[in-house]
């Protein structure tokens, strides 16, 4: 009885909190987007850098809605003055927030002693380029790159690739089991509490559309496989670009 009272209250409180900061423009943008895409799951509504517009983050995508809710723009927004891709840089911040929220206890980490960079790699046991990447893990580490793996079995939940990921997660020596599976050895079937489904859903939230999908420390989606040298060059470049951008 008590519980039944409490739950709706908790929901109401959460609802009020998340909508407390919403103003008329945010509400109009939300309404406009739902008008066009009723099933859209809206993450964030906020003022856009484009004057007179809101920006709405939906999953891993961004749309811009005029403050009066009349027009919606979908695409990539550039600042012609600074030459910056404002859409990608805002989404990177959002992706970073979501990826960083995964605690280390839910990652499979391969790190050098003093990492200079940390990349997060969505991976699938059964993907060729994921295997290639992992076969060079010592080389990435040697270049100061820490590799944190999250599982993204492309075939989806409760498929053979998914089961392999769970088996690796539940092995006694997780990292060794991961490396063995990446070398093509079928993992010993095992089951336990695991974050695989949660990571798969996170992948969908941050626009993972294949594996490996690699995120830089600043949330930039680097994309797919890069050799250890290319990866280091990319990370160094992003590092300086971020400094220059600020």
């Amino acid at each position, binding site marked *: 009885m008590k519980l039944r009272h409490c739950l709706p209250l908790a929901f109401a409180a959460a609802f009020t909190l998340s909508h407390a900061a919403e103003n008329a423009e945010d509400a109009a943008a939300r309404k406009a987007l739902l008008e*066009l895409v009723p099933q859209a799951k809206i993450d964030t509504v906020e003022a856009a850098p484009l004057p007179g517009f809101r920006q709405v983050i939906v999953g891993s995508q961004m749309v811009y809605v005029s403050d009066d809710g009349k027009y919606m723009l979908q695409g990539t927004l*550039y600042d*012609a003055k600074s030459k910056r891709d*404002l859409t990608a840089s805002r989404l990177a911040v959002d992706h970073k927030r979501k990826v960083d929220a995964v605690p280390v206890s839910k990652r499979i980490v391969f790190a050098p002693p003093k990492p200079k960079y940390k990349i997060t790699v969505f991976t699938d046991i059964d993907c060729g380029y994921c295997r290639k990447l992992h076969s060079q893990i010592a080389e990435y580490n040697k270049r100061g790159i820490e590799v944190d793996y999250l599982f993204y079995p492309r075939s989806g939940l409760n498929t053979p690739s998914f089961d392999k990921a769970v088996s690796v997660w539940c092995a006694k020596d997780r990292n060794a089991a991961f490396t063995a599976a990446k070398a093509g050895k079928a993992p010993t079937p095992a089951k336990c509490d695991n974050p695989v489904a949660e990571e798969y859903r996170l992948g969908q939230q941050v626009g993972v559309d294949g594996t490996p999908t690699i995120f830089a420390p600043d949330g930039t989606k680097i994309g797919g496989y890069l050799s250890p040298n290319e990866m280091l060059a990319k990370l160094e470049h992003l590092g300086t670009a971020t400094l220059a951008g600020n």
Partner: protein
Amino acid sequence: MRLVFIVTGLLLAVVASAATPEDTVRQAMSTLAPKLRIDAVQESEIPGFYEAIAGGEFVYVTKDGRYVLDGNAYDVANRRDLTATARAKVRKDALEKIGPDKRIVFAPPAPMAPKHTVTVFTDVDCPFCRRFHQQIAEYNAKGIAVDYLFYPLSIHPGADKKAEAVWCSKDRPNAFTAAMAGKDPGNATCPNPISELTEFAKSLGIGGTPTVIADDGTQISSSIAMSPDRLAAELDRLAAASAAN
């Protein structure tokens, strides 16, 4: 001192008003992609924006030239894809400037009057263009007049020469039909609109052949256009939709 400010302000106002939409779009795009070709700059339906075709893509540029959006725009209340509409308008206006002297026309035979006219960008060496033309009698029988514009693609070396030979033959439609059936059109030369039409197609962001465009400027998907029945139905639907607006 104050006067200086006012005068400066006036000068700025004059400078600002002197910038044409083209200047503004060009200036904004030049910082982002200096070599991109800009075509068809116009006032957008979205207040505060110009729209243009840049490198074949539709872009929206704020009137102050500061922001560029590469993508699509929608009218929320009416659920309209404004980019598709704007692209169609650009194509329609542009096509109206291409006279019959630059087209090869296959109209339904008299006394049948054409119900619809489509403009088709075509290439002698493109297999789907050939297949399209094999069905020309069927399109005509459904009341569809087909106006061809030559757009020989660079991936088909020599197709421009064949187009020229067709263009320069005595009986253009017959030479066209023969060439589309695989017959060598020879190598006649004469003044012709082919390079102009090629540039024209590029300026509209048309990247392939056959590209089929309806009277109202709508680009018809090739899966529809390749079927005379489906094309006729689609043209009826478009005509009804524009009559309703």
